[in-house]
């Protein structure tokens, strides 16, 4: 069936090199767009993985300021709180590879295994961890990266808590849910605390509490904060999701920048398409003149141009999205999940991003065709035919 789209598609194949380069250029823009949108969605997905029946309490001013350890006992007494644990951010590094990032936290081990019950640890490894003050458990992903196994000895280099901190790897954990990062290292709070000078002891970074009813989370949080309102150090209690989002708030400028860049990339794509379409229209002016002469109305000529843009946009969208899958999900995604699991526990392209990418490829191609289509629409037959000579 001969129709506008078919003729438009054939027109695109007249200059195969230019069409290929245009489609590739637009596809690269689509890939970059998908990648940036996936970074943004993966970041918020990390927050969405948070447990709904867990709340977190931190210093009212900032996450980086510590609170007295005895707060945890008072929180355990709040109605609705089933259990609570506490931790500090240790900020340790692998002395052999200081540039490698992984989360290191010192927890109250017995209560931590109760509060974070989606963490899976073999019973013998759990016993060994609880029995050894220098014991540490690491996620299976981090164990692979560091080449560690149970029974190994590993020395962490402290930054917030300076010095060398030898640890015994007593267990390698996995997780039943994405709320647990499998590239972290946990060890005993008492090991760190007992090594500190008296004036720095018994300070904690945050308290994680398991509650009996997720629906009462805001009320329980308010009760906890109210309890400490009269103290020198006040608290802020929030859902685990809100806590994760507050981490993201620290990098909100970066996220906004990525958002803006993704829009700029789309405009670049539109200009690439617009340029190609305009060149095609200019080259085919005499053919459009002939079509007009044999009776095609001006709107039909404009439709030829729009059809050509639509075909280019659709092909670019399909190619871009087809390439995005292996690049983003199988390449970059796996790399980020392995190495930055704390930030990107699930780096996968959101189906909405596919739809958005395809839709935008088509819409922007159509937008790019507006001016060339208008020019084709306004073409004077006699002027167009004069280009025959």
């Amino acid at each position: 069936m001969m129709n506008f789209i078919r003729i438009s598609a054939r027109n695109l194949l007249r200059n195969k090199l230019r069409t290929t380069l245009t489609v590739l250029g637009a596809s690269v823009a689509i890939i970059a767009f998908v990648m940036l949108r996936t970074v943004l969605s993966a970041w918020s997905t990390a927050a969405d993985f948070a447990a709904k029946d867990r709340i977190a309490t931190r210093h009212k001013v900032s996450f980086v300021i510590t609170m007295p350890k005895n707060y945890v006992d008072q929180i355990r007494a709040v109605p609705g709180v089933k259990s609570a644990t506490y931790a500090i951010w240790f900020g340790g590094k692998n002395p052999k590879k200081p540039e490698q990032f992984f989360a290191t936290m010192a927890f109250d081990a017995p209560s931590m295994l109760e509060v974070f019950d989606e963490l899976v640890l073999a019973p013998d490894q759990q016993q060994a961890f609880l029995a050894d003050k220098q014991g540490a458990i690491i996620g299976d992903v981090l164990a692979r990266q560091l080449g560690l196994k149970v029974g190994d000895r590993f020395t962490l280099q402290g930054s917030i808590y300076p010095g060398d901190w030898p640890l015994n790897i007593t267990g390698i954990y996995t997780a039943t849910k994405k709320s647990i990062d499998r590239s972290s290292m946990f060890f005993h709070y008492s090991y760190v605390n007992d090594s500190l000078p008296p004036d720095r002891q018994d300070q904690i970074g945050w308290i994680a509490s398991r509650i009996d009813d997720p629906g009462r989370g805001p009320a329980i949080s308010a009760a906890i904060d109210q309890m400490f309102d009269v103290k020198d150090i006040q608290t802020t209690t929030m859902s685990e999701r809100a806590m994760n989002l507050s981490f993201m708030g620290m990098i909100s400028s970066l996220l906004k920048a990525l958002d803006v860049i993704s829009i700029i990339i789309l405009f670049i794509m539109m200009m690439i398409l617009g340029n190609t379409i305009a060149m095609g229209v200019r080259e085919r002016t005499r053919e459009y003149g002939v079509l007009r002469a044999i009776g095609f109305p001006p709107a039909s000529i404009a439709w030829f141009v729009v059809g050509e843009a639509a075909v280019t946009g659709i092909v670019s969208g399909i190619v871009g999205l087809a390439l995005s899958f292996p690049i983003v999900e199988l390449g970059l995604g796996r790399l980020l999940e392995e190495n930055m699991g704390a930030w990107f526990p699930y780096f996968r392209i959101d189906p909405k991003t596919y739809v958005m990418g395809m839709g935008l490829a088509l819409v922007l191609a159509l937008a790019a065709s507006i001016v060339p289509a208008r020019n084709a629409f306004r073409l004077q037959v006699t002027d167009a035919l004069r280009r025959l000579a």
Partner: protein
Amino acid sequence: MSTESPIVSLKEIRKTFFRGKEPITVLDGLSLEIPAGSFEALMGPSGSGKSTLLNLIAGLDRPTSGSAMVAGANIGKMSDGDLAKFRSGNIGFIFQAYNLLPVLTAQENVELPLLLHGLSSAERKKRAQTALRVVGLEDRSHHDPRQLSGGQEQRVAIARAIVNDPTIIVADEPTGDLDRKSADEILNLMDRLNKEFKKTILMVTHDPAAAERATVTRKLDKGQLR
């Protein structure tokens, strides 16, 4: 169709273009009647207004003043859209440079004007095949234009011009890009269209041999018929 009744009737036609603010009158009070079924050649030096006159008769342009009746329609007063419909139903075009769409086969090029008439695909193919048979290129229907010689391309263009059974065929230098042999073949074909199929043909040419094939030759100079 009677050969006596004029199919083209132009009265006091004036066509003025503007180069910047400077008016240039190309046709100056020209009157002309062309009987239906005639084969007329229009000759004249470059810039004499031949193509402008052809464009006016074909409904590609409108006169600045004067009356232009073609195939019973007052085309001087028509909108762009109405002119397009008029051309689609009444005019067949043959251009010097053939102007086939290179992305379409010979048959698809011939089918192009029929897309405007809401015909089924099968009907379009049937009519295109008939037109190609008339010009002797039925066996080349699936060839791309680049696979055809210049003469064959022009024959495909003629098939495209006649496929919707137009009242008038306008030809602007139809043999201008062809060698003598191919030009003669095209002129023979036009002669046949005129005599056998009773088509009114108006041809602009610089070639005296081509003009000899016409039943009437008109000469245009400085916007006036001599």
